[in-house]
């Protein structure tokens, strides 16, 4: 059986920056438990002698000449931002009161 508990789900949600509700945490605990039990099957054949594949078609690093290409203008880059000030993205406070 998997080790998925509500505490684990809450911790994962925190790492993934999703403010899950308590109901969502309860529901996901059950669902993830059964999914993880099922996908754990991969370990049956993943023996030490098998190499890992990260990419379907082997490719080496791809380089291009270091010359300026076409880039977005600041206005284009900012066009979809929820908030911006002059030529910059505007974010909420980085530090909370307790920091």
């Amino acid at each position, binding site marked *: 059986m998997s080790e998925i508990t509500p505490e684990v789900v809450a911790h994962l949600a925190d790492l993934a920056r999703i403010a899950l509700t308590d109901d969502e945490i309860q529901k996901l605990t059950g669902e993830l438990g059964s999914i993880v039990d099922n996908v754990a099957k991969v370990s049956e054949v993943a023996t030490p002698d098998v190499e890992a594949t990260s990419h379907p078609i082997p490719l080496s690093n791809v380089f291009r000449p270091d010359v300026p290409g076409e880039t977005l203008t600041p206005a284009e880059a900012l066009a979809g931002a929820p908030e911006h000030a002059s030529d910059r*993205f505007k974010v909420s406070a980085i530090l909370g009161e307790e920091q």
Partner: protein
Amino acid sequence: MSELITATAADLAAKLAAGEVSSAEVTRAHLDRIAAVEPSVNSYLHVSEQAIATAEAIDARRAAGEQLPTLAGVPVAIKDVLCTVDMPSTAGSRILEGWVPPYDATPVRKLRENGLVPLGKTNMDEFAMGSSTEYSAYGPTRNPWDLERIPGGSGGGSAAAVAAFEAPLALGSDTGGSIRQPAAVTGSVGVKPTYGGVSRYGAIALASSLDQVGPVTRTVLDAALLHDVIGGHDPRDSTSLTDVWPSFEQAARRGAQEGSLKGLKVGVVKELAGGEGFQPGVLARFRESLELLEQNGAEIVEVAAPNFEYAISAYYLILPAEASSNLAKFDSVRFGLRVTPQGGGTVEQVMAATREQGFGPEVKRRIILGTYALSAGYYDAYYGSAQKVRTLIQQDFSAAFEKVDVLVSPSAPTTAFKFGEKTADPLSMYLNDLTTIPANLAGVPGISLPAGLADEDGLPVGIQFMAPARADERLYHVGAALEALLVDRWGGPLLHRAPQL
């Protein structure tokens, strides 16, 4: 129905080139059809306001004597996962509602350069996570064959659009079957090219090592024509292959000629062609197609792919892992939604509130699952093992392709299921992808085309062919050959038997 909307893209291209019809007329016929059937189908998230103007500009260039590319003037629908500068691109998510990207995806740019006329953006499961479009934040698309059933997913919008004659051509994206499974359940044609065959630049990423953009159409020749337009190397995608590709149009035309199957070795993948979960009507149509191939000179052999049974497990580790990383960019800063908690908050709290409100249930499920699979202490057991399974699946494909030219299986284990049938149990939805996932894990190309209607429910069944990486040409050859034989037997295209909407 107007002949302008039931015609194939190849026929429309010929009529446009001969001056028998204008692009504006063809485009208007499709916009009329969209207006008439969208209330029941819901294929489109956005219909372009510039389509007629684009079509008229093509007509003007043709009238001025300009030599235009083959598909110039033919309308096309675009899956909402692809960035378009003139239409919102939401990937079916609330978090991107109304977002208009500052650049075009490369396949979209190529459509425009070739004079195709974008009709609009098609519906999909949120961020392409799903097999039914039920996870679209904007409501599901309905299957034109039966409005109470799913059109497949994630690209149900593109498949339903072509099946309901709302577009002759569409673009899709296929990470674990999102082009091929919707094609199967709607009686249309879909191709997942070799990984790297079509640029992913501007395709909103789900799982970068699996995603591939491809054509969604009603005929194999139309898919080939569209693939010829969108394929090829793109320096903006570092995984784009530098190969020079043959003409897929020519491959399809050769395949449709009599005798083209002689000597072709077709391998039936034992693990994907029966057993638990396969509907009898799907298997009956599948076997009939094999008999037809054999009667026309193909050699049918059975091949084993023993590690395919681990494919779904590996996929549902690799995909969530890559997705959890790719979707980290939806951070409430650079684009999309921002939700500020009551009384304000730090950037982290704003981010968490935004993602809680902006993402739907399946996206949250997979991000959390991916975060788990990548956690310290679990990485080797889950993600590491899944990558090893990927190696084993590639080895199964290599061994099979030493014996045969193409592999074959049903495209999906069942016909279209009813809404709500699989949403209560995420695992049951995942198992639906067992026939399509192996190709993505190995990067090989696959095509789904209609094989007939299942006896028990009268709904479309799809047959899938797979070829070695870089041998997409073979899919168009064998696909066009079988399609010609089946259409001849049916006395016309299968989609003409779909109920009137």
